[in-house]
């Protein structure tokens, strides 16, 4: 049995914390080395914590002066920050596309923006709101083409995976007249598309990454459904390591038993601390933070790879996460949110 087939058959109990990341590919020696050099410029946890503990937005922004997110002299407004963060995100995605020798991998990661654009367009179309022009231009389908397709409702211009997503999302919405069904349907198509691509590319790492993400999404969905006391059991994504039966069982038991249900799985810590925080604070903040941390932990295991696409992909995802964290802290500071709340988002 080859690596990819073995990986596809792994269950939640077949590895300790993180799934395998696959082998080396010496064609990526240059790309990996460049990424390792750039990684040293990433913001340390200490800087992020200092930003969270800063008195106000201006003080938090000042801590970024020595970094690539530095604001122009004298400028301290949030719009400026947004622009810089968008520029950094575009730059990191461009670098990723340049370094990625396997074009299908770059295409796969660009598809994330296609799905995000589509989610927005379908929501607006079905709720009869103006289509707008604020679509991301980082996807495989250009933003202008997107508007044109949805205005003319000519979906045949879209790639196959998107046509499928449009069909499933529209059908799911009209079956229950519930806007959340659009998200569930698109999440499902996106997860299937990711897994299918990872198998086609025979990438053990991508398969592990997407299966882990499916598990984390399912765990979040389970706790949200539980909180809403919803009886929808068909919304869990398939293809993860955790069996759907376990997730459905989680809906029927008390919060105190949910952690134990995941005891033998790699997600015990995530679920246990997420549920405990939810019970005492009625907030999913900790769960979200723990899910992010688990995924980051998996991405960090690519350190053992000297050359391969894995460290490059990990860099893209960790850098995007860093940009999101900077935005989160500065938004919170701009809105004068409590420091404790921000620190909870960042984790201990």
């Amino acid at each position, binding site marked *: 049995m080859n690596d990819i087939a073995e990986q596809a058959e792994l269950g939640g109990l077949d590895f300790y914390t993180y799934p395998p990341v696959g082998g080396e590919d*010496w064609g990526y*020696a*240059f790309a*990996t*080395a460049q990424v*390792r*050099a*750039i990684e*040293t410029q990433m913001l340390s946890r200490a800087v992020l914590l200092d930003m969270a503990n800063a008195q106000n937005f201006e003080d938090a922004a000042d801590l970024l002066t020595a970094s690539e997110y530095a604001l122009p002299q004298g400028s301290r407004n949030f719009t400026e920050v947004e622009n810089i963060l968008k520029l950094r995100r575009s730059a990191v995605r461009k670098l990723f596309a340049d370094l990625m020798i396997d074009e299908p991998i770059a295409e796969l990661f660009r598809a994330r923006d296609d799905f995000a654009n589509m989610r927005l367009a379908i929501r607006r179309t079905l709720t009869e709101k103006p289509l707008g022009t604020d679509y991301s231009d980082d996807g495989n389908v250009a933003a202008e083409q997107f508007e044109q397709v949805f205005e003319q409702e000519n979906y045949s211009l879209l790639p196959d995976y998107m046509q499928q997503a449009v069909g499933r999302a529209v059908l799911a919405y009209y079956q229950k007249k519930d806007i959340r069904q659009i998200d569930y349907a698109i999440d499902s198509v996106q997860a299937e598309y990711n897994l299918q691509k990872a198998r086609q590319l025979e990438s053990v790492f991508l398969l592990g990454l997407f299966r882990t993400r499916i598990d984390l999404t399912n765990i979040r969905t389970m706790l949200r459904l539980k909180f809403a006391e919803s009886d929808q059991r068909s919304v869990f994504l398939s293809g993860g390591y955790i069996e759907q039966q376990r997730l459905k069982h989680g809906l029927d038991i008390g919060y105190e038993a949910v952690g134990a249900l995941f005891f033998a799985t790699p997600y015990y810590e995530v679920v246990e601390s997420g549920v405990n925080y939810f019970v005492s604070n009625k907030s999913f903040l900790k769960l979200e933070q723990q899910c992010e941390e688990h995924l980051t932990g998996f991405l960090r295991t690519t350190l053992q790879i*000297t050359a391969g696409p894995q460290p490059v992909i990990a860099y893209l995802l960790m850098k995007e996460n860093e940009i999101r964290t900077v935005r989160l802290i500065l938004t919170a500071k701009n809105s004068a949110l409590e420091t404790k709340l921000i620190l909870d988002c960042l984790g201990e």
Partner: protein
Amino acid sequence: MDYGVALALVGAGLAALMAGIGSAIGIGIAGRSATGVLSEKPERYGQMFIMVVLPGTQGFYGFLAAFLVMLKLNFFGAGGVPELSVQIGWQVLAACLPIAFAGLMSAIHQGKVCAGGILMAAKRPEMAFKAGVVYAVMVEVYAVLGLLVTMFILLKGITWPTP
């Protein structure tokens, strides 16, 4: 040219060729990693240089073994190449194999170790010598052992004919 000399020359050729291929691959791997780091941190050139050239030594060892065979065959001396029995020809060929194979494999693996060292030096320059170079030298030891065996056999294990 007789059969024995042909076998000896195949041995010399293999030693230079295989160790040379290994070195080229090893330097290629380490070089690509080094350029990746240098594209962001050009000030690390000195540290990177040592680790890039280390896998090149096996190519020299192979060349040295081949040169020794040619010297023993009186390639560059007056009087021409002496006749060599088939048995001695096989002995020379066998003598060249340790450096040929040890050179090929160790250079490739040394290149990979150096690439790892280069990546580490990108993040922790103080460890570049301690881990990067020292670990690479440990791989080098086996190429040196291969060369020593080749040289011992060529110098002491074979009764060369006098020209």
